[in-house]
């Protein structure tokens, strides 16, 4: 759920900038403004075309062929194959389960933390810092560290279990997906907490004051004010969370290698395998495009609903 993945809602109602808006006629001054704007934009247009839209176009073409070497056009074959391939379907379902688990976990813990810290607990800055550290830590470190902690023979969790007379556990064998979910919740609850804190701060104090005067109790205020007014934030967390969970690569790559079996073969890990291990390039491209379509659908839902502020 990293920051760079977030998709802010485009505010279509942005008023035109107040500079130079003297009618439709192209005055020399306005022409100069237009030229300036385009000059400033040249690097960006070149970059985004070369590094985003051209690769996207290439990937689309590849997805309709047999591969990169001696490509043969195959129409929608790769897509049809992917949509009926049990491996791909399994991988998609596992990813959805991973997304659901890690979102439910991090939303519950993140909201709980935000509500507690928002009460003005003493030392909340220190607590907030501690909670955010995992989020700032690289997935490479997080993955390796948890692999060590959970290791059945040298890991400290099993040592602790043995010390109190309990049998050791092989979490990465018996509950691999749940373990990855747990690691994600550990890493990302802090980020979710920050989003909820921002949402809580945006609720006007007057709303609470007014309801207090009306005699509403704490629980009523939470249910009738806090929960509905946090709905946009929750919705944002959900969508951003699903989109970023769909792209979780580091954990299966470092912690489980997709296994045991195919228990943690998250979708993009599967795409990576098809691309670089099996080198089934056309097929992998189609899978990547299906992912893109899924993300686009979610993003459009977000934009639609995000605009209807009265609803959320």
């Amino acid at each position, binding site marked *: 759920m990293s*920051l*760079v993945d*977030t998709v*802010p809602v485009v505010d279509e109602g942005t008023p035109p*900038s*107040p*500079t*130079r*808006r003297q009618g439709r006629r192209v005055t020399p001054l306005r022409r100069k*403004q*237009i030229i300036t*704007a*385009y000059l*400033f*934009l040249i*690097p960006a247009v070149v*970059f*985004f075309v070369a*590094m985003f*839209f051209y690769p996207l176009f*290439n*990937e689309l073409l590849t997805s309709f062929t047999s591969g*990169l070497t001696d490509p043969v056009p195959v129409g929608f074959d790769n897509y049809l194959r992917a949509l009926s391939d049990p491996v791909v379907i399994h991988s998609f379902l596992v990813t959805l389960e991973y997304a659901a688990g890690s979102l439910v976990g991090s939303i519950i*813990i993140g909201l709980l933390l935000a509500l*507690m810290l*928002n*009460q*003005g*607990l003493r030392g909340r800055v220190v*607590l907030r*810092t501690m909670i955010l550290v*995992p989020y*700032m830590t690289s997935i*490479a470190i997080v993955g*390796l*560290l*948890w692999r*060590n902690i959970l290791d059945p023979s*040298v890991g*400290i969790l099993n*040592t602790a279990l043995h010390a109190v007379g309990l049998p050791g556990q092989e979490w990465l064998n018996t509950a691999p997906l749940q373990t990855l979910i747990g690691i994600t919740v*550990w890493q990302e609850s802090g*980020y979710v907490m920050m*989003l909820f804190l*921002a*949402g809580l*701060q945006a609720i006007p*104090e007057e709303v609470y004051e007014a309801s207090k005067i009306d005699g509403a109790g704490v629980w009523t205020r939470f249910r009738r004010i806090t929960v509905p007014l946090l709905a*946009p*934030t929750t919705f944002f*967390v959900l969508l951003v969370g699903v989109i970023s969970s*769909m792209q979780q690569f580091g954990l299966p*790559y470092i912690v489980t290698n997709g296994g045991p079996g195919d228990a943690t073969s998250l979708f993009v890990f599967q795409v*990576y395998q098809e691309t*670089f291990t099996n080198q089934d*390039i056309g097929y992998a491209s189609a899978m*990547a495009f299906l992912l*893109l379509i899924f*993300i686009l659908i979610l993003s459009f839902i977000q934009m639609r609903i*995000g605009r209807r502020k009265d609803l959320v």
Partner: protein
Amino acid sequence: MTLAARPARRRSQRGLDDRLFPGATAVSYVVAILLALACVIPLLYMISLAFQSDAEVQGGTAVLLPSTWQWGNIARVFDAAPFGRFLLNSLIVAGLITISHLVFDPMVGYVFAKFDFPLKGAIFTAILATMMISFFVRMLPLYVMFSNAGWLNSYQGLVVPFLMDAFGIFLMRQYMISVPNELGEAARVDGASEWRIYWNIVLPQTKPALAVLGLFSFVFQMNEFIWPLIATSTEQMRVITIALPLFNKESFTQWNLTAMASLLLFVPICALFLFTQKYVVRGIAMSGIK
């Protein structure tokens, strides 16, 4: 949405008359402290692990703290693999990308915030839409492109796909909308060049947003995993995030050295975070604002 003056402590006093049940504040403290500890204890354990002896990490029973702190592990990790080089590579790549974001993102954001021109809406939408393009869609075409250009396994190969960032552009545009026009207008009347207006007048007013942008760009690039994994093939060009799991695979019994190598990345990022928290908090809050 503005960065400035978020009334951070406005409601810090609330809560005293808002208790759900008697003792709720005490329970809040206990739960919050326990959760905060759960966040940092694994990372503290990593520090302990880094200073344990080989016998302790291979003994079959994990120990919480080393019996004697093995300061020699610091030197050993650099002997075991060229971690200095890996860290330097990470710093070079993340540094170059951060500089590029700081140069280009505000420039583009400025145009969208302050100028009117044909196709403005279309270009802006197209740039924002790139946020939805998962890296896994670009991964293979970029690999092929860079392979043909001979850019795989080079600094330019690691840097170029990330030179600009739609989120950074969006952030800077939002911030620049709130920068007043008057000074720029006055300078324009005085005959200042457009570049001077941007560079000397507008840009200096966006320092808080630049700080957020620079910090996030740097941290995220230091932590970047997938592209360096694909785009580098020799030890010379390897960055530290990729080197860590590889090292662990080669010497999987030496968890102490893996942990020590992890600290090489963790400690600087963590220190940076502690010193610039204000900006991190602001940046995350902004990512959620619509």
